[in-house]
């Protein structure tokens, strides 16, 4: 009897993990794997929103190679990484160091720095559009101090940099929280020992704090570069649906949205663009992880 129970349990064991994982697998399959497979398959067709497509091989990829707007999108998405990631790796760390200390009223500052994270991106975007408008608060102040009005929302580069500034401003609090958790794990003794050895605050920052949170910095770098490459909302809200003057501020994800949506959307071509975004994003992650491993070695 006992033996048969054991053998039954043994027979059933392999099933149990799958049953436990089933809900997660189902969700992953329906919401991640199927759309992923669908996008991959559509990338090789000329499918439109309402018209079933035919297999066209690599035609969509050849077309995007010759599409000026694709290169504009790739340039802007890459520039976004260059502009945003260093700021989001360094500034939240400094902010975390500032609010790390337990002094009266510090909770207020922590909350204040985190507020932009919870604010809706649409609301944030609209507020910044009002602020940076030709007749907005920022330009009024600039005019008052004699600098004159600046076309933050009409010049292609200023517009892109303004959107980057909003991304950095909105992301500071989020990454600050990640750094705060990492900083809490840095042994106080290390700082004390360094102080005893005569290291000042800046020296301690570079020789104790930075090495201690280096893996967190890599994580923040990876997360923020993926997010930066896939930027959509900030640029869409500030540059408008056409992607800024002459579409020069269009990012790759904006191009996917513009090409693939609506009743006349080119689903096949937009899918090919999405595949490129996916490949670049994965490559980016691998690059960051490789750099991390190399430093560890």
């Amino acid at each position, binding site marked *: 009897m006992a033996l048969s129970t054991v053998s039954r349990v043994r027979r059933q064991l*392999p*099933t149990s993990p*799958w049953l436990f994982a089933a809900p997660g697998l189902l969700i992953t*399959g329906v919401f991640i*794997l*199927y759309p992923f*497979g*669908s996008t*991959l*398959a*559509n990338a090789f*067709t*000329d*499918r*439109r*929103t*309402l*018209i*079933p*497509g*035919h*297999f066209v091989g690599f035609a969509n990829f050849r077309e995007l190679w010759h599409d000026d707007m694709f290169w504009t999108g790739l340039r802007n998405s890459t520039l976004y990484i260059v502009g945003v990631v260093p700021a989001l790796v360094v500034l939240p760390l400094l902010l975390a160091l500032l609010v790390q200390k337990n002094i009266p009223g510090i909770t207020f500052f922590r909350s204040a720095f985190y507020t932009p994270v919870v604010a809706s991106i649409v609301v944030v975007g609209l507020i910044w559009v009002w602020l940076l*408008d*030709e*007749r907005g608060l920022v330009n009024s102040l600039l005019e008052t101090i004699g600098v004159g009005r600046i*076309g933050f*929302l*009409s010049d292609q580069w200023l*517009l892109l940099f303004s959107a980057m500034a909003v991304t950095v401003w909105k992301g500071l609090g989020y990454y600050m929280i990640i750094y705060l958790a990492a900083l809490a794990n840095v042994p106080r003794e290390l700082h004390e020992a360094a102080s005893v050895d005569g290291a000042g605050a800046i020296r301690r920052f570079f020789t104790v704090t930075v090495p201690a949170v280096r893996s967190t910095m890599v994580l923040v770098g990876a997360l923020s570069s993926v997010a930066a490459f896939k930027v959509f909302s900030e640029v869409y809200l500030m*540059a*408008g*649906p*056409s*992607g*800024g*003057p*002459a*579409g020069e501020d269009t990012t790759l994800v904006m191009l996917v949205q*513009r*090409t693939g*949506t*609506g*009743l*006349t*959307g*080119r689903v096949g071509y937009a899918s090919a663009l999405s595949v490129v975004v996916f490949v670049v994003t994965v490559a980016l992650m691998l690059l960051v992880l490789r750099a991390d491993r190399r430093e560890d070695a």
Partner: protein
Amino acid sequence: MRISRRVFAAAAAAVVLMPLSACGSGGDDGGSTDASGKVEGDITFQTWNLRANFKSYFEGVVSGFEKKYPGTHVKWIDQPAEGYADKISADAAGGTLPDVVNVSPDLVAPLAKAGLALDLDKAAAKYKSEYLPGAWASHQIPGMTGTYAFPWYLNTGPLFYNKSLFKQAGLDPDQPPTTYDELFADALQLAQKTDGKVATLANVPTVEDFGRYGVELMNKAGTAFAFNDAKGIELLTKYKELYDAKALDPQALTATPESSGKKFLTGAVAMNPGSALDLDNFKKQAPTLYKNIGITDQITSTGHVNMYVMGVMVNSKTKHTAASVAFAHYVTDAQQQMSFAKKVAIFPSTAGSLDDPYFTKEDGTDETRVRIAAAKSLKNAVNYTPVLFSEQMKTALRNEVAKALQGKESPKTALDNAVKQCDTLLQQQG
């Protein structure tokens, strides 16, 4: 139960290959074009951002229809304005398009091409004479025979201008521009007198502007765009002059109708197109502007102002064709349209309705003056937006226009490029 690697691989392959099966041709499991049967059954009616302000009106329409045709039940749903086209395309692609749908001509074109809009020339020809001929024709698609939506309400509007800004620039506030030459001259003077701080216009020229200027937008067969002719280049060259002189707002390159409306409200631009609906908005949001508001006719070189047309389409796949056609006609008949027009500043597309005293008799108020002028101009107005002009084409034109205004391309090159891109998109539409 062990899941073998082979089974797992098969499942993974299915996940990847399954979507390919969607690339085949769609089946036809729809209803018929015969609307002569008994009017009965449950149907769904979708409107475009109308619930917030007109809930009781539409509930009345629905209950009136259900009373007239016992055995019918209409489920009314409303979608927000933002992303309406995306919602329709998702429903159309997913086979969940409502039976009766509020559409505009550019939305109905791809639906008709995909075989999802019922041809009313076949299913509802008897109602054709009830509508203005131009309005009925507005849902006809070049390259296709048939009419794919009942015309519903029309709209057009005057050009509003800020009299106080005109005065500041030394312009006569009671003599607004009536021709394009006058408009461009006044705009340059206004920019010069205010050191470029006040622009006259806030938007780059759209396809409607080219049409109103007298540019041939498409060839006669509707198979290719043609707005890169000499007249089109002339208009864009004029706009370039305005942009350089800051008579066209510097943010016009990224402006939306909403943002330019706000600029007019704040006195940053001197003129803005609008409708009778805007007067109430001016009164509430910018009382100072309202005191200085000037109202003039749309400027046009063709003698025809631009109009916007709304339509009501019947889903060709509906299981209740008779009820859907009857309801779409009921919503758009003269009585319902007149009743709706008295609730909001829109204009009926039914024959004879614009001769109603409501659209012809002055009562001394600005609202009535605007309404009467608009109703008069609608009698020979034109919907300049080609029905095949998609969102992607609008973006292509807008971006090329922006390049010309920035001086990156000549107006001719920009329009040639825009036409080329629009033609490619047109061919891809099939």
